[in-house]
């Protein structure tokens, strides 16, 4: 530390020591974080709801207790609309400024489409998504959710890079790339075939597959106990998987990442969140001869 002036350093540290945390702030921070996580989860849910619903429905319909079932044709739902990036607009933005932002987005060579969602539209979408959990939105004012543009990028575009670019645009409050998964899917590496790319865009298919795998894993323990009225497995907080993990109680199940590792091969990180700890695992998924194969992976989490 030869470039550090010791006396100056001591004075700076003494100056910094003059400010100490207020214990009351902790609860405020935790409360705000809780609200933010709820809102973030809700907004993320809006963007990926189509993928999740598709995945769960697909898993429910296609899972069979014995034997194997070929995947449907790879391109069967490749044309589903998707949003890669959500751009949240400053509440104070005027109509003219929003139109200006739209023009800037549409002029971006990587933007395939940009759809504006007003506060009202966002709230309606949110209500629809959480129709069975009205406590999420009953007490929310209708203008609680921000205006946004939902952007679809051209194939091959890097969502994270695009998101960073969009963040510099005027009136942009925040930008979220769609769970950072899309860009990894659409860049599966050299040697990928169009079919693989098409399947790999279907995060929902892999999610459904993983859920199916988890379902099979517990089948020996009486899987029907953990199914809902529609025969689906509910991994969510307080879901019906919870009885399998009573102590400590299961709080959440998440698919953390999906990484292509080669043509037709993927790694899927799953996470079971308990009170006081998280169990994580990487599963291997392979597509061979039109079927998906999944195996209990190595323990431990591989970061994206």
């Amino acid at each position, binding site marked *: 530390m030869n*470039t550090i002036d010791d*006396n100056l350093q001591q004075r700076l540290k003494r100056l910094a*020591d003059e400010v100490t945390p*207020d214990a009351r*702030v902790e609860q405020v921070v935790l409360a705000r974080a809780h609200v933010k996580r709820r809102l973030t989860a809700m907004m993320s849910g809006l963007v990926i709801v189509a993928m999740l619903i598709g995945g769960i429905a697909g898993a429910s319909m296609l899972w069979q207790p014995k034997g*194997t*079932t070929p995947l449907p044709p790879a391109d069967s739902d490749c044309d589903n609309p998707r949003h890669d990036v959500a751009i949240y607009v400053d509440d104070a933005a005027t109509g003219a400024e929003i139109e200006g932002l739209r023009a800037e987005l549409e002029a971006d060579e990587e933007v395939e489409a940009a759809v504006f969602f007003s506060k009202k539209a966002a709230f309606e979408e949110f209500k629809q998504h959480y129709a069975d959990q009205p406590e999420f939105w009953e007490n929310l004012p209708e203008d609680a959710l921000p205006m946004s543009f939902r952007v679809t990028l051209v194939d091959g575009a890097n969502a994270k890079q695009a998101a960073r670019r969009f963040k510099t645009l005027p009136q942009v409050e925040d930008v979220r790339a769609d769970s950072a998964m899309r860009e990894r899917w659409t860049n599966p590496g050299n040697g990928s075939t169009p079919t693989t790319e098409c399947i790999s865009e279907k995060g929902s298919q892999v999610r459904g597959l993983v859920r199916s795998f988890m379902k099979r894993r517990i089948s020996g323990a009486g899987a029907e106990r953990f199914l809902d009225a529609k025969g689906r497995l509910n991994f969510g907080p307080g879901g019906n998987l919870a009885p399998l993990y009573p102590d400590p109680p299961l709080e959440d199940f998440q698919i953390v990442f999906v990484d292509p590792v080669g043509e037709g091969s993927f790694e899927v990180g799953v996470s079971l969140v308990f009170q006081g700890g998280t169990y994580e695992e990487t599963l291997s998924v392979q597509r061979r001869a039109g079927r998906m194969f999944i195996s209990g992976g190595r323990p431990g989490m591989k*970061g994206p």
Partner: protein
Amino acid sequence: MGVDDQSITGVARWVPVKRPSLAELYRTHSPGALRLAYLLTGERDLAQDLVQDAFVRLFGRYRDLRDSNHFEAYLRKTIVNLSKDHRRKGTHERSYLSRYAPPERVDVPPTRDDELRVALMQLPERQRAAIALRYLEDLSEQQTAEVMDTSVAAVKSLTQRGAAALRQQLGGEAR
């Protein structure tokens, strides 16, 4: 969705990964975060606000952090960025504390080394950040460069110029 029996290579082992709770993270890191924010802003209330915002922002995406073991590094970077944003926009949200836990206020003693605080605030923002990260946080030049999204050479230059300006402002007392 079909799953081939033969492809299931066995029930995977769950490996416990103990993550600290958000409350634990806050208690561990908030004092240091506040000290850094104070040197960056020179204002106690504003520093409290920035630290709150930084924690809220990070807690909101805690599970998405690539490596939750590096929470402190994420926090440090978030505080530096929030401080920069605050200065750039020229506005900031008033303390949530006063909103949620009104009217009780704590009398804050005057700064003992106001001369240094004033001199620090007169530095350009990036020089001040480099000084705070190097002198207060004891970060290396490389670590400081990573937090500030700049080069090691730039950090060296910013630190040297910042320290020289402080010495000049303080009339050699800091030496």
